[in-house]
């Protein structure tokens, strides 16, 4: 985790410093208000210190940029990861549905559904909430690549 933080804050700038080829590290990230960026920077402790080469506006974009440049590294939602990029192991733990669920993969954050305090949910909203947190939905969510509650 520390290495990742050092890379993103610009203390490590060349892949050879971490055992790779002699090539400049190209930092790809998200734009300033992005939830993904906020999650990443909070977990890695690099808030406000990241020295990005590119600030892209979507996860898909980050994946495309990384897949095109052999020297690039970026963060993206697990759900969007494709074969065109390699998902790195953090602290020896590779990201997958299982390691996210049991918490061993460190860089993660939960999706939250926000409701208004003090008022009960409308019927439709309540049914949606029940559906999303049910076992039935779990299958759909997994297929889409994200990690369900169950």
């Amino acid at each position: 985790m520390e290495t990742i933080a050092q890379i993103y804050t610009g203390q490590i700038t060349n892949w050879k410093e971490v055992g790779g080829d002699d090539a400049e590290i190209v930092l790809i990230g998200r734009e300033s208000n992005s939830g993904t960026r906020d999650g990443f920077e909070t977990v890695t402790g690099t808030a406000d210190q990241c020295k990005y080469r590119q600030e892209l506006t979507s996860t898909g974009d980050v994946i495309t940029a990384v897949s095109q440049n052999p020297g690039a590294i970026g963060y993206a939602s697990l759900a969007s990861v494709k074969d065109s990029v390699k998902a790195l192991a953090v602290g020896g733990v590779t990201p997958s549905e299982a390691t996210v669920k049991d918490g061993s993969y460190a860089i993660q954050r939960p999706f939250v559904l926000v409701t208004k305090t003090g008022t009960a949910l409308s019927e439709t909203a309540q049914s949606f909430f029940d559906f999303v947190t049910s076992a039935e939905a779990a299958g759909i969510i997994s297929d889409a690549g994200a990690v369900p509650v169950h």
Partner: protein
Amino acid sequence: MEHKTISGRRKAYGGVMRVLMLFSVAVTCALALFLIGYVLYKGVPNLSWELLSTKPSYLSGTIGILPDILNTIYVVIATLIIVLPLGVGAAIYLSEYAGSKRLVAVIEYAAETLSGIPSIIYGLVGMLFFCQFLNMKTSLLAGSLTLVIMNLPTVMRTTQESLKTVPQSYREGAFGLGAGKWRVVRTVVLPGCVDGVVTGCILSVGRILGETAALLYTAGFAHALYGFFDGLQNAGATLTVALYVYAKEQGEFEVAFAIASILMVLALLINLAASLTGKYFKKRRSL
């Protein structure tokens, strides 16, 4: 008679200019060929009936662009329905009714200004005015209205151009026969400007097809299937917006290139339509 030869310096000048011209043309053609070729090469293999006729769904794991096609059609229809009366009316005012020259100058300056404003500012103001202030939410209708303002100058200009070609003697003849102004406009002037209106339509459709920034913030990018009137009230992506979203946000390049190919073919058809109607009306007028 003396035969003067061209001096060496002049010959060199001519030669250099020729080279520059040919080089530029070559560059332009090469760019055009490359763009068209690359897009078609990457896009056509991905075109399939399935792509064109379904909607995207995680449940069935498909990506289809039918909603986007429908949304594009809806937006084009809605925009044209509104912009034609507005644009033609404004053009008629300028050419037939306007009294003071200053007012004409002001209106024309306003139209010119409108056509120079970048589409992202239209998107922003459209979002603020139509979606928030008028409470239309993110919807195709808000997008259409924004596009109406964007295309108003185009329709106005082409209509004005063709109004100018209606001979003044036609109008004078009608007045001489005792017709009121409105009747003259209705029966003599309007039929004469049809070609300008048609050209304006075609140009507007071309512009609408190519528009992303203005629509992204006013019409959103949903992919649900609706009928015309429901569709107008809901958010939806047109083909071009969908292309942007698929390419940039989801990295689905196959779909993006397929859409790009479709758009390119449509652009070609529009160009064809524009030049054909231009020729047709030219012939009619010279009869």
